[in-house]
Each structure stands twice: as structure tokens, then as C-alpha cells.
């Protein structure tokens, strides 16, 4: 609570006695947290709640005597609690408006009575008791809790114990721990908010001072007369304030002489910069109090204090610029660090580095002297806690910490047994563990904390995996006592794991392996008892037997998603990745296998990459997979490669990892392993390849490195999974024409068709149908497929299949139906009805394929009859309403085919309410493909005069005219067609002219695309029947290109061009005749 209050809470800084909590969202949430803590304190920690405060917390309350009920003596407006301390003083006393409270139980009760005024009470309490911890635990506990050498501390503990005063201490220790927990919790919740407020740090202050010093002196021209630190000594952490002030957050003190005002004495603290009572030299006892508001930086403070400075600094534009940019940079650099420190402060409420300089205790003496007597009693407890903190942040103190923890344990009540064990588990670390097996390593071990932040890189990975795990909140460890017996057995083993040497560790690990580690209760036991951390620490010990044992357990329990996450949080990935370099092959294989399990979620995969895991994994693949006879060592190599491939498979689900694998040269190695005869090798290899084949570069490599042949070969494997991955890889690669041809060349089409018989395995079916779909884009393949009677089977798969399969089946049918004979075949096999039925599916990918297939089938008159009977036209038409542009355009193309081939399409179209409006509305789409398809549809629909009339009424002409400025040839072609068709009605020709469609159309003639030229010529021919349009065309010099087109081989084009020229010519002649006529008269 202490840290959150002093650091996190935002106070209005004036003088400390009347400070108010600023009403910010952060403070609100802080208050709520504290309220919650206090409210539940009584029920959660009954023993501690009875502890009597050192001094009462007092504040002006809004509560009055009538609010209090039983358990209280009420006389007039005064209230006293029944509960009293050992000397008979009431624990709660109210003499309006002030209330005095002396225990948590009373605090809880009071808050309970306050009902809706709870928050206000907490706020008032905190505002008037700025240092609640001091009052609760006594000063020595809250502030002096520092700077004692370890050995002293231990002896004091012993002494206090002997004196039999431990009871009070014990409660205090517990209370203090509770506060720390509370602090940690609050800070965690507030961390996000805190991150937005950058606090000052020594580096930033130093930079600013250095820059300002450049501008010192120089008489009136300078910004300041002088600027100096009070102390030249800089601590290793960059602070210059004396140690006991560092605790308060002070960084350094400055003495600044401005040009126009008196000398300023300034304190730079992490909270900000303010004037102090005048510290001139290092080591002064007083003058530290704050005498001004807090400023965020030195320049702002100086600006407000010295008009001269403000004036000059505005002139010194460049300087300010430099200052601010430099500062910003530092601030950014420090932000990460700062956050980290904030977190660490939770454990170590003093600036880092202080530990190393803690010899300087003298400075603290004066502060303490008044309480010298009590000190000896409390010191014990104090230092005990300190030892714990320092241990958790500085590995060097491990050995002494251990003794503390144990003593600490004896202090704890038995009801906390469970919690206690967990705690011990937490504080025991690798350093200690390895100390028992290899003493030389202790100092080099670094402590792992779950707070470990990675070098900044935003998450930017996409995943192709649909079953991607979501990050879920951690399971809250349950504290109930109904734990299975395995739990306690594992807990016992963990104890030996922590205390034993290498030999014992191996036995413990073996015993642990005998449990059913796939069982969740065992996994949770391992996590809860802290074994996970020990297991991860073992990975850094260099004892390969322990490492093997640990990995054997890790690879099994990492099937649990929760544990995977904890492993990543504990920076386990780094350790595991490091083992990939081990010379012991078994270790490499186990590490890779563990990675394969852990890398099931994004953050883990990212970690693997960031710590160089991809390169190492790729190296594991290097072996000779297809030798006839193998030495034992080569067999081991193959085993390692297998595990490596498994790990890469998991990792390859992230796009960046795919790139990294490629960069590390993984593709040729995978290609080599693809020749292996072993299924357990092939599955992960093909799995990785098919996962990566979503990348264009991989597809090229797969094809050029000759992997298609191997993929095709394995299609005939007897393993479903392998077949599936092969089919899936072909599915992804067959987008490319050469690949499709290769599949045919290596006789892969027949096995693909035979896979269709495995209708039970839906994943396999989806992959196989997908491969067939993509392969059938090549007509030669379709012919082959027909030989194997693929079409019949595909049609039979149109019903009762999951969508993944349907999408592919229908896609394949769409491709098959490009060959006229197949259209009839689809009908004969009864495929039309299910196809039309699928038009009502909600799946957009499916709809795109279905409309395409229906469109292809609709070009057959007999098919069209069936489609029409099934109300297919209406269904296709209604798909134009689909939000997906792909579906819209695909439906519009299908509509073209349907309209063209249906008997009474015009009639049907008119019967659809709102259909025409919809079409005209789609002309304002921004997607060119949609526009082109709609234009094509309009062209077909408008062949019916009545329809054209209706379209015209809905304003099709101006809509089309608006599109004429496009440069997309495909759209131009269909647009010109549509315009030509729409000219057939009423005054539409003139309307197009008025809407300015003619001039852009003339430009289309320059297009090199034959279809565009022809359509345009026809449109111009139609438009030229209107004299005004002719004039426009002539102005735009249409004649030249038209004459050129008249020489084309395309008869339609010739005719249209000639017709258009004729119109222009006729107009000219008529005009001339008219002129002559007028002239004559």
C-alpha cells in the first residue's frame, strides 16, 4: 500500500498536511482497490485484523453516532467500540467530526457501516493519514526498513526470539507482507496507467542539466548565471542524493543562480522537480521539504521562476528544440526500463544499486535515534523481511535467504500451510538449486522473474491456423483442500527436487515421470508447487542428466495450454532454445519436442524466433534420411531431425517464422527429409511445408526443388494424416500452373481421386477436394480426372459435408463445368439441385464458388430449366445483397449466364421486387470487379425492352455515365457493352450525351485490348444516332481511329466502326445541305 500511495496516487502538491487526492480515474481505481482490501481484511485474515495499530488512524468522518449500531457504546454524539486493546482503550472512537480507529477489524466494520459513503471515507482516511503504514506498523517498520547488513539481521532475529517477543512481530511481519501483496496487486492493475506517465529518472535529469549548463554564464546573454549539483559524487545508479533520501525518490539537488532572481535550490526527484528549503551542501539534515509546486522538468520550473530565463529560452529556439527532442528520446528509451523498475519496486522499495552501497548506514542514524530503544526489537523482523526482498532481486544472497525463508515458515500459522509452501516454492530459485550441484555457477545465475520483458517488437504475426489458441487469463489456483493424493506426493517430490543434489534430482525427476503427467491434477500440482520453475531452472544447470529429466517432464506437461503459457512467462523458451545447441543428441531432440508443444500459441512462437530458435531448429534437420543402413549415431540424427521438424511445424504457424525458416535455409533441408521413408519424419515435414505453402516464395521453392514428386508419392501412403498434409500442400501449391502440370506428370491425380473415398476423415477430404479443385483449373487435368470418374464422386459429396469440404467440392465442380460435356454430366448425376440449394449458405467463400458453378452450369439450356424451376435465379439475384464484394461479383456473373439462358428471364427479373434498384445501386460500388460484373449483368438484362425501361427509370444511364472515366480495361469492356445495350431505349442516347459519357468513351478506342475496342465501337455506333453525340465525337477526333478500325479483321468491329463513321458523315452531309439550302435562299 505504501508504494502505491506514494508513487501511484496523484496528490495535489501543496503542503503535505492538507494534500488532497486528485480525482482522476487512476486514483478512483486505486481507492476502490484499497477499499476492497480493507473491507475483506477481517474475513480473510482474522488474526491480523485484531492487531492494534501503533498509532490510530484519524480523520474527519461523515458518519454520525446514529450510524453505529450494536457493539458500540453511544453517548450523545460520541461513540466508542466495545472492542478494546490490552490497556482498555477502545479500538474505535468517534468524537465528531473526527474518528480514531486502531485495528483493521474496526476499519472493516466502519466501512461496512458507511454504506454508499465508503469511498469517501477511504479517501478522507488516506488524505489525512499520509503514511498509514507508519501509523499501523510504527515508523521503524515502514521507513527505516533498510540498510542493515545481513549477518546483523540474523543475530537480531535470534535475539528477539529469545526474548519471546515474537508474537507481536509475527503479526507485523504478516501484516507487512499483506501490504506488500496488496501493493503488488494494486500496482499491477495500475501498471497500464502508470506506463502513460513517464516519471523522471537520473538519466533524463542529467541530460537536461548538461544541456542547460552549456547555456550558463555569459552575462545577460546567457540563460542562467550558474547551475551546479550540490554533490559531485554520483552513485552507480545515477543518483546523487544521499541514500536515505533516495528512498524518498530524490535524484539530486541543484543550486541554480538565475540572472534576475535569487538563487534557487531545487530537488529533482522521481516525482518531479520542485524547490526545496535550501540544500547547499551534501549531507545536510534539513531543507528537504518541498516549497513549491512540482514541475515535470527543469525548464518549466525555471520558466515560471525566472522571467529572464523564459524570455531567453524562447529566443533560443534551436536550443529548446534540441532540449526537447533529446529529452523525448531519453524518455522513450527509459520508458521500458522505468516500467520494469516500477515493477521491481514492488519487491524492493528502494532504488536499485542501494544494496551495493549499504555500508553507509551512518547517515541514517540521526533519523533513527529517537527510537533507538525499540529498534532492537523490531530490527529482527525488519531485516528478515528485507532479506527476503533482497533475495528475490539479488541472486547473490541466496544462501542466507534460505535460512530466512525457513525461519519465516516457522512463524506462520498452520492454516497457511498451503500458501506457505507456494511461497517458498516461489522464492527458491535456480541459484540455490545449482548451488548444491555446482557451486561455481551461483554467481553467474540470473534470477528469473515472470515479469521479464522482451526486447520491444510489436506482435505482428498472422496465423494461418484456425484453431489458434487464445490467450486466456490464468486459472486462479484453488485453495480448497480437496486435492488428489498425487498432489501431495508431487509436492513432496518437489521438496526433494529443490533440496537435493544432482543424483537426488535425477531420482526425483524419474519418480515424477512415473505419474500420469497428462492428467490435469498432476500438471496443476507441478505448476502450483513451483516445480515448473525448478524444472526450467534445471535447464540452465549444464547437468545433462537433470536437463534430460526435466525436459522429459516438460515435453509432457506442455500439452497443457496453461502450463505452456507459464513456461513462456518464466522465460523458459530461452532456456529450451539454448539447449538446442547441446552436443547431446537426446537433449536436442527433447528440447525440440518441447518447443513443438510450447509453440502452440503466438507469443511462444515469437519467443522462439527472437531467441534464435528457428536457426537452431533448422540446423537439427541436417541428417541423411534415406540411407539403407544406419549407424546408431545416424539413427539418433534422424530422431533429432524428426523432433526439429515437429518444432518447426508448430513454429511455422506464424508468418514471420515462415520467413525465418526460409532465411535459415530450411527449405532444401525439408526437401531432403521429404525423401525419408519414415512416416514419423514425413508428417511433421509435410506439415511444415503445407503450413508454409501459404507463402508465395515457398510455393516456388517447393516446385523448383522438386518436392512435388515426393508429395505426390506420399499421397499413396497408408497414413491418413500424411496424405492429408500432402494433399493440403498440393492444394496450396497448385495455384501455379506449372505445379498443376507436375502433379499430372507424376501421376498424382489418381491418388487424389482415390482419397475421395475416405469420406469419414473430413480433414483429409477437405484437403483432397481442395487439391482436386486447384488442379482442375488446368483443363488437361480435368480430362484426366474424368478418366478416374472424379465428377460423379464430387457430385455425391455435395450433400452432408462440412463447409470446408463443400467449398472445395463446389470449386472443383465450377472448374469441371467449364467443359460443356461436364455440364450435362453434372445434371445427370443430380448435381444441380444440391448446388442451387447451397445458394442459401451463409458461408461467403462457399457462395463465391457456388455462384461460379451455378453460372457455369447455367450455360446449358437443360440445366437452366432445372435451375429456374428451383427458383435459382431469384436466389442468385438475392446474393447481390451479400456484403462481400467477391460474392456480389460472382453472383452477378452467374446472373449473366442465367439471364442469357433462361426462357423467360425478363419476366422472372421483373417479378423480383427491388431487384433492379439493387443492380443500379451496385453501380456505385468501389470494387471494379463488382462493377464489371454488374455492367455485364445489365447488358444481359437490358436485352429485354421492358427491363431496360425499368432500369432507365431507376437511373441506370447517369450511373453508367459516371463510371466512364475508369481506366480498367475489363470494366471498360463491360461498361461499353452495357452502354451500347442501354442506348436501345427512348432518349437514353441523348441522356448519355448529356451525362458526358461520350467523350471518355472515345478515349477507350486507344486501348490495346481488342474486346474494349469492339465494345466501344459498338457503343459509339449506338450513341452516334444522336446528332449531338456525333458532334462531341467529332470534336474528340473519333474519325481517325474508327477508320483505322474499319481495317480490322473483326467483322463486328468493322461494322460498328463503319456505322459510327457513317452517322457522323450523314450528319455532316445533312448539315451541309441545310447550310447550302439556307445559303441559296
Amino acid at each position, binding site marked *: 500500500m505504501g508504494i502505491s500511495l506514494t508513487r501511484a496516487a496523484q496528490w495535489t502538491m501543496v503542503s503535505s498536511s492538507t494534500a488532497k487526492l486528485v480525482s482522476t480515474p487512476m486514483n478512483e481505481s486505486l481507492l476502490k482497490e484499497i477499499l476492497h482490501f480493507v473491507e475483506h481484511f477481517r474475513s480473510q485474515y482474522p488474526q491480523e485484523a485484531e492487531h492494534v495499530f501503533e498509532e490510530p488512524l484519524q480523520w474527519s468522518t461523515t458518519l454520525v453516532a446514529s450510524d453505529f449500531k450494536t457493539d458500540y457504546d453511544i453517548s450523545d454524539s460520541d461513540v466508542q467500540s466495545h472492542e478494546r486493546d490490552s490497556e482498555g482503550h477502545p479500538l474505535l472512537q468517534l468524537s465528531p467530526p473526527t474518528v480514531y480507529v486502531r485495528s483493521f477489524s474496526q476499519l472493516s466494520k466502519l466501512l461496512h457501516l458507511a454504506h454508499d459513503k465508503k469511498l469517501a471515507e477511504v479517501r478522507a482516511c488516506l488524505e489525512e493519514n499520509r503514511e498509514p503504514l507508519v501509523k499501523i506498523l510504527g515508523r521503524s517498520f515502514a521507513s527505516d526498513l533498510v540498510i542493515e547488513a545481513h549477518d546483523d539481521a540474523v543475530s537480531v532475529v535470534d535475539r528477539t526470539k529469545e526474548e519471546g517477543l515474537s508474537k507481536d512481530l509475527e503479526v507485523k511481519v504478516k501484516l507487512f507482507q499483506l501490504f506488500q501483496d496488496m501493493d503488488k496487486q494494486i500496482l499491477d492493475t495500475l501498471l497500464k496507467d502508470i506506463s502513460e506517465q513517464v516519471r523522471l529518472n537520473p538519466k533524463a535529469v542529467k541530460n537536461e542539466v548538461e544541456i542547460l549548463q552549456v547555456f550558463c554564464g555569459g552575462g545577460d546573454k546567457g540563460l542562467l548565471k550558474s547551475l551546479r549539483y550540490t554533490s559531485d559524487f554520483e552513485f552507480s545508479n545515477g543518483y546523487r542524493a544521499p541514500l536515505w533520501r533516495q528512498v524518498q525518490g530524490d535524484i539530486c539537488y541543484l543550486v541554480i543562480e538565475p540572472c534576475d532572481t535569487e538563487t534557487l535550490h531545487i530537488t529533482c526527484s522521481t516525482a518531479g522537480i520542485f524547490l526545496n528549503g535550501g540544500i547547499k551542501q551534501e549531507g545536510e539534515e534539513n531543507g528537504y521539504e518541498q516549497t513549491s509546486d512540482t514541475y515535470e522538468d527543469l525548464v518549466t520550473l525555471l520558466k515560471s521562476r525566472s522571467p529572464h530565463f523564459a524570455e531567453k529560452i524562447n529566443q533560443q529556439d534551436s536550443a529548446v528544440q534540441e532540449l526537447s527532442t533529446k529529452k523525448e528520446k531519453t524518455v522513450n528509451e527509459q520508458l521500458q526500463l522505468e516500467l520494469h523498475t516500477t515493477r521491481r519496486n514492488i519487491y524492493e522499495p528502494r532504488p536499485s544499486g542501494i544494496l551495493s552501497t549499504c555500508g553507509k548506514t551512518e547517515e541514517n542514524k540521526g533519523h533513527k535515534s529517537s527510537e533507538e530503544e525499540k529498534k532492537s526489537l523490531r530490527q529482527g523482523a525488519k531485516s528478515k523481511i528485507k532479506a527476503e526482498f533482497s533475495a528475490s532481486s539479488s541472486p547473490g544472497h541466496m544462501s542466507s535467504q534460505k535460512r530466512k525463508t525457513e525461519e519465516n*515458515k516457522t512463524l506462520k500459522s498452520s492454516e497457511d500451510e498451503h500458501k506457505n509452501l507456494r511461497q517458498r516454492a516461489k522464492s527458491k530459485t535456480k541459484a540455490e538449486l545449482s548451488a548444491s550441484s555446482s557451486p561455481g555457477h551461483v554467481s553467474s545465475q540470473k534470477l528469473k522473474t515472470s515479469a521479464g520483458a522482451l526486447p520491444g517488437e510489436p506482435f505482428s504475426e498472422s496465423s494461418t491456423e484456425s484453431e489458434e489458441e487464445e490467450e486466456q487469463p490464468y486459472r486462479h489456483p484453488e485453495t480448497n483442500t480437496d486435492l488428489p493424493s498425487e498432489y501431495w506426493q508431487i509436492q513432496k517430490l518437489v521438496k526433494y527436487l529443490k*533440496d*537435493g543434489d544432482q543424483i537426488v534430482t535425477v531420482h*526425483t525427476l*524419474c519418480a515424477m515421470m512415473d505419474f500420469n503427467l497428462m492428467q490435469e491434477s498432476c500438471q496443476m500440482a507441478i505448476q502450483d508447487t513451483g516445480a515448473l520453475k525448478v524444472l526450467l531452472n534445471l535447464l540452465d544447470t*549444464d547437468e545433462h542428466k537433470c536437463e534430460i529429466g526435466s525436459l522429459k517432464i516438460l515435453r509432457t506437461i506442455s500439452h497443457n495450454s496453461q502450463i505452456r503459457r507459464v513456461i513462456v512467462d518464466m522465460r523458459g523458451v530461452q532456456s529450451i532454445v539454448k539447449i538446442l545447441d547441446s552436443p547431446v543428441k537426446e537433449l536436442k531432440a527433447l528440447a525440440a519436442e518441447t518447443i513443438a508443444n510450447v509453440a502452440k500459441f503466438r507469443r511462444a512462437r515469437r519467443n522462439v524466433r527472437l531467441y534464435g530458435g528457428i536457426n537452431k531448429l533448422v540446423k537439427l534437420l541436417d541428417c541423411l534420411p534415406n540411407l539403407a543402413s544406419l549407424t546408431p*549415431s545416424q539413427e539418433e540424427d534422424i530422431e533429432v531431425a524428426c523432433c526439429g521438424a515437429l518444432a518447426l511445424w508448430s513454429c511455422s504457424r506464424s508468418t514471420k517464422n515462415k520467413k525465418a525458416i526460409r532465411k535459415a535455409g530450411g527449405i532444401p533441408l525439408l526437401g531432403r527429409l521429404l525423401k525419408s521413408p519414415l512416416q514419423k519424419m514425413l508428417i511433421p515435414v509435410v506439415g511444415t511445408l503445407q503450413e508454409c505453402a501459404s507463402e508465395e516464395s515457398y510455393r516456388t521453392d517447393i516446385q523448383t526443388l522438386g518436392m512435388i514428386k515426393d508429395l505426390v508419392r506420399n499421397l499413396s501412403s497408408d497414413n491418413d494424416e500424411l496424405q492429408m498434409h500432402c494433399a493440403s500442400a498440393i492444394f496450396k501449391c497448385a495455384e501455379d500452373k506449372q505445379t498443376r502440370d507436375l502433379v499430372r506428370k507424376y501421376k498424382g491425380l489418381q491418388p487424389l481421386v482415390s482419397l475421395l473415398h475416405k469420406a469419414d476423415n473430413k480433414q483429409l477430404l477437405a484437403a483432397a477436394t481442395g487439391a482436386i479443385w486447384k488442379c482442375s483449373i488446368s483443363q488437361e487435368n480435368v480430362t484426366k480426372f474424368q478418366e478416374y470418374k472424379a465428377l460423379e464422386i464430387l457430385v455425391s459429396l455435395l450433400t452432408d459435408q462440412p463447409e470446408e469440404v463443400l467449398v472445395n467440392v463446389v470449386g472443383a465442380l465450377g472448374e469441371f463445368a467449364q467443359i460443356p460435356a461436364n455440364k450435362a454430366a453434372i445434371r445427370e448425376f443430380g448435381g444441380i439441385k444440391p448446388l442451387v440449394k447451397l445458394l442459401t449458405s451463409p458461408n461467403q467463400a462457399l457462395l463465391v464458388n457456388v455462384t461460379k458453378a451455378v453460372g457455369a452450369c447455367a450455360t446449358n439450356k437443360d440445366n437452366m430449366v432445372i435451375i429456374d424451376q428451383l427458383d435459382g435465379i431469384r436466389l442468385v439475384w438475392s446474393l447481390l445483397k451479400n456484403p462481400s464484394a467477391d460474392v456480389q461479383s460472382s453472383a452477378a456473373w452467374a446472373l449473366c449466364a442465367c439471364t442469357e439462358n433462361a426462357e423467360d428471364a425478363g419476366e422472372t427479373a421483373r417479378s423480383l421486387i427491388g431487384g433492379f434498384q439493387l443492380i443500379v445501386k451496385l453501380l456505385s460500388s468501389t470494387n471494379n470487379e463488382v462493377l464489371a460484373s454488374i455492367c455485364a449483368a445489365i447488358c444481359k438484362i437490358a436485352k429485354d425492352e421492358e427491363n431496360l425501361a425499368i432500369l432507365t427509370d431507376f437511373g441506370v444511364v447517369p450511373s453508367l455515365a459516371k463510371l466512364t472515366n475508369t481506366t480498367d480495361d475489363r470494366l471498360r469492356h463491360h461498361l461499353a457493352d452495357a452502354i451500347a445495350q442501354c442506348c436501345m431505349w427512348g432518349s437514353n442516347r441523348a441522356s448519355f450525351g448529356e451525362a458526358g459519357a461520350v467523350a471518355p468513351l472515345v478515349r477507350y478506342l486507344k486501348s490495346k485490348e481488342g474486346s474494349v475496342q469492339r465494345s466501344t465501337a459498338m457503343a459509339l455506333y449506338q450513341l452516334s444516332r444522336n446528332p449531338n453525340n456525333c458532334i462531341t465525337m467529332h470534336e474528340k477526333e473519333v474519325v481517325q481511329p474508327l477508320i483505322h478500325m474499319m481495317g480490322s479483321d473483326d467483322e463486328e468491329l468493322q461494322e460498328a466502326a463503319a456505322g459510327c463513321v457513317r452517322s457522323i458523315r450523314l450528319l455532316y452531309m445533312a448539315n451541309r445541305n441545310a447550310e447550302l439550302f439556307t445559303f441559296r435562299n
Partner: protein
Amino acid sequence: MNKRTTQTLAENISKQVEHFSKKEVECLIREFNVLMAEQNNSGRAVHGLDRGKFISTLHSIFGLTDDRMTGRVFRTFDKDNDSVVSMKEWIDGLSVFLRGTLDEKIKYCFTVYDLNGDNAISREEMLHMLKGRLIRQPNEEDPDEGIKDLVEIILKKMDYDHDGKLSFEDFEKAVKDENLLLEAFGTCLPDFRVICNEKLLSSLNFPIKNSQSYSLLFLFFQRIEMFEGRVFQEQMEQ
């Protein structure tokens, strides 16, 4: 010993010992002679390495530091119980040490752990070998309580015939089941990584410049197939 005798000796021994070629045996003989020369025989004629020299060799070259184990290793090497390790015993022992198959190693380890030679590892023997391997908790009354408990856990896992001790069959089965249990009661085989670790070598004052001792080193490297063939060639050229 001149070169010729060494060669004849090597030829004889290599026929009786598995895993070593004649040339390799020759190197080992030379190494043995170096160690013999270093040994302070104080005038007596000894036909092998005495306990002290042997243990210090284990310590410096093979990185075996556990005193409880090195004594037992000496006993195991010294098959005829004459308190010295003869040349033949030395080469025999090293063949298991460096090139032994799993079966040979199981046999070797079992012999090391079977302190009284009754062909079984009893509870007491385990207790003796594991003693002190668990850091004592001050609040526990019996300091060996943890170890006793551990022995029960070990028996539960390894004692397949439930007779309260580990017979050779028990031990063999357990190790084949889980290789990690090979050195179950103490390190008694060299860890080649220890040898390869340069830093450790220098800290042990290993005489790197002594080419004779190199021959042993190279034997380890062979295990990791880094110097296969080349090593002994170099030796021959010298």
C-alpha cells in the same frame, strides 16, 4: 619399456580387450607408463597404479570428484583386489569407461554401487551412498529422514521383485527402462563434456602440453566423433 615390447604387449592385450584397437591400446599403455612414472613408488617395485594415484587420475583427467565413488571405482578397476590397478586392469576398465556398451556400463555401475559385494544393493547401501545429498532442513528432527523417504521412492521404482533390495536384474531392468538411472547412486563414469570444457581443464591444472595425456583426451573426443581416426594417426606419426 622400449617401443617393441610396447607393441607386442599392445597386440596381446588388444586381443583380450574389446573396443580398443591395437594402436589405441598402445597409446593407453604409454599413458599408463607416464602415470606410473609420476607415481611416487618410494623405492618399492609396484606393478600398477596405487589407490592415491589412481584416484587423483580420476579426478584430474576424468573429472570424477565424488570421494565416495572414486574409492569404489578403484575397487572395481582393481579386479584381483591387490590394491593396485595393473596395466591390464587399467585397459580393461577404460574400455568400459570410454567405450562401454550400455550393458557393460550397467554391470560396471552395479559393481560400484554394490558396496559389500553381495550382488545386491541394500537399503543401507543406498542410504550410505545418498547420505548428505539432500540439504538438511533445520526443522526436521531426523536429518536422514528425507533420504530414507527417497530410498523408499527409489525402491518403489526400481525394486521390481519387491524384496526390499536391488538385485542386478532389478537394476538392469530399471536402467534399460530409463537410462537416466544408470548412475543412480553417484557419478562413476566420466562425463565427456567435463573433459571438453577447456576452462575446467585449466582449472584442474591438466597438463595440456603433455602430448601423452593428449592421447587420453582424444579418446574422449572420439566419443563425440570429432577426431575419429585422425587422433591415432597423429600419435603414430610422432
